[in-house]
């Protein structure tokens, strides 16, 4: 009985399904790639499929973490892809203008310029959404459309390449045997979790997402919270932009971060954050982003033609959304009542009856 209740507690944890999907996806690889889980040490760097999943997934994790907070306030940010492109373009064009591209101060200044531009984009989005009261999809559409144009304007339509060792470190370098980007991601995620879960900030964000007007009436400055959240999201996108351009040592105004906003939203949804706003899970988002990256890697390794990648993604979106839809669950699982309670049944379930039941299947 205790194992049953423990099992129930486990399956009802909000991270259970995302993690289960991630593990299942990882296991799918094993028959196709025998050494999938092995990690080798070469030249003092760790190599292996798991490492590369984390390495290539890190920009997505960053963007998705920022997106989580925006979605938690009931908004959405479509402009992150354009912000990625702008940041990369500004930083790379500044570095490429230097005579000595390896100077640390120049690289830091360039990154600063890029990140400031990103934050300004976020400020603009937040201003439109919070002050002007424009729907988030539309407000952020402006930068999504114009931002790529601006990025191309900065790079003059060219792909700017840089040859800077310090800059290369952020997205493609190694530090203490691990890819440096892993440390950046860990730092950002840790700071975000600390700020949202160890202070009242997370609660405020959730309450603004739950009901912006009610939050304002109880004295929460919902406008300020919203603007902050959009700025944070743009900052995360900016850091991701640095990573992407650093990894390829080039800034491509047209293709850098293309469709990353969609992947990020997908990651957030897989992680269990509701698109309606009001609650969020940073951990879930990180797992969600890893699921997407693992899916991409899996498609490469098991030899399915890579072009079906998007079809798989579409299937994942549909399945995840259907599972999250209360109406769908009521129609499909509710109709087959005896099949057993799913994760949604928990709140209405009389707890003693469930404990007394020997098996999950007959508890109703």
């Amino acid at each position, binding site marked *: 009985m205790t194992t049953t209740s423990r099992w129930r507690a486990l399956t009802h944890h909000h991270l259970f399904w995302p993690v289960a999907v991630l593990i299942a996806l990882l296991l799918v690889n094993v028959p196709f790639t025998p050494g999938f889980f092995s990690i080798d040490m070469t030249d003092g760097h760790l190599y292996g499929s798991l490492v590369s999943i984390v390495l290539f997934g890190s920009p997505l994790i960053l963007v998705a973490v920022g997106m989580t907070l925006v979605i938690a306030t009931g908004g*959405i940010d479509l402009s992150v892809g354009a912000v990625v492109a702008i940041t990369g373009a500004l930083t790379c064009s500044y570095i490429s203008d230097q005579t000595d591209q390896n100077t640390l101060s120049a690289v830091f200044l360039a990154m600063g310029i890029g990140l400031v531009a990103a934050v300004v984009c976020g400020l603009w989005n937040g201003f*439109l959404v919070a002050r*002007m*009261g*424009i*729907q988030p*999809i*539309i*407000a952020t*559409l*402006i*930068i*999504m*459309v*114009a*931002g*790529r*144009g*601006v990025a*191309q*304007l900065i790079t*003059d*339509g060219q792909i700017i390449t840089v040859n800077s060792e310090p800059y290369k470190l952020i997205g493609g370098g190694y530090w203490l045997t691990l890819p440096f980007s892993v440390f950046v991601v860990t730092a950002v995620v840790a700071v975000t979790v600390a700020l949202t879960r160890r202070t009242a900030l997370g609660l405020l964000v959730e309450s603004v997402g739950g009901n912006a007007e009610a939050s304002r009436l109880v004295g929460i400055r919902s406008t300020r919270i919203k603007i902050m959240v959009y700025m944070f999201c743009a900052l995360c996108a900016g850091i991701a932009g640095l990573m992407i351009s650093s990894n390829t040592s080039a800034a491509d*105004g047209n293709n850098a971060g293309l469709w990353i906003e*969609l992947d990020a*939203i*997908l990651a957030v*949804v897989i992680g269990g954050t509701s*698109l309606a706003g009001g609650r969020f899970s940073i951990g879930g988002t990180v797992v969600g982003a890893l699921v997407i990256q693992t899916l991409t890697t899996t498609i490469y390794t098991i030899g399915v*033609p890579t*072009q*079906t*990648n*998007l*079809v*798989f*993604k*579409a*299937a994942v*979106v*549909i399945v995840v*959304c*259907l599972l*999250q*839809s*209360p*109406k*769908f669950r009521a*129609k499909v699982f509710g109709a087959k009542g005896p099949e057993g309670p799913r994760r949604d049944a928990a709140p209405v379930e009389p707890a003693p009856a469930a404990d007394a039941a020997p098996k999950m299947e007959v508890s109703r």
Partner: protein
Amino acid sequence: MSATAQTPKAAPRGSTASRARATRLLGDRRLPVLVTAALFIAMYVAGLSRYQNYGFGEPQVFLNLFIDNGYLLVAAIGATFVIMSGGIDLSVGSMIGFTTMFTAWLVERQGLPLLLVVPLALAVGAFGGFLMGYVIHNFEIQPFIVTLAGLFLFRGLCLVISKESISINDASVGTLAQTRVSLGVGDLSIGAVVALVVLAVAAYVLHYTRFGRRVYAIGGNEQSALLMGLPLGGTKIAVYTVSGFCSALAGLLFMLYIQSGDPLHAVGMELDAIAAVVIGGTLLTGGSGYVLGTLFGVLVLGLIKSVITFEGTLSSWWTKIATGVLLCAFILIQRTMTSRRKA
């Protein structure tokens, strides 16, 4: 919100009424369309005076706006229906890409006659839209995320058909693409004519049929529409079906225009379509707007492209920046208008 655009013509006379008149003018639903039309005319006149010696004034330059943007017009009309009902459709671009790919594959690789392929492609598009509408309505998932899945799915299906572009050498397609309808001062392509026909049909359906009224009503206030007893589900699903159909038709026109199928055709065209609808004055919250506005929205976007071509020194990315700036300006106009109306 009623769908009618009837504003009393007889404004109160006298100086005391001038403020009331100003308020009424700002509250007029036709204002955004008029602003867009005025903008278009202003841009055209500016273009005339600047590029007079380069043949900008020729009627054919004006008609080319329709020839070069016919597919966008059809796609934007589909998007108008969806946005008018308060939803959004992100799958437009990939549906266009998929249709070009699908038809090219059927015509070139499978050797099916065009007469059979066209209805098939349209049916697939409409069915795709129907499916999305069905999921949106029956499972109450946000349109944004469902059509996002549609975007992935159709773009993915393009790539499943073929990774490389398929050029179309079919004789009937070639003839159709070359056919020009003479208008005296210039000529239009088949695509442009089809687009104008679609425009007329859409204007009729949206403004003069029961279905059109329901679309407005649902976009205005879904709850009230439901309480009035309007068939909410059927209308919503129909709106997405219309959008899917229009996207597929736009795909066919695009295929005719460019005579090939390519998995990367029309990437991001949903943004152009949405931008055209917004610039055309349709409220993004739904319930207010005109199909004619969408036409002007598309024409303004098309004119930006032609002006950039005529200018010669400007690069193509200025199109994106100009679109973004216009989008921003019109969203802000909409915002001030709606807040005035509430006050």
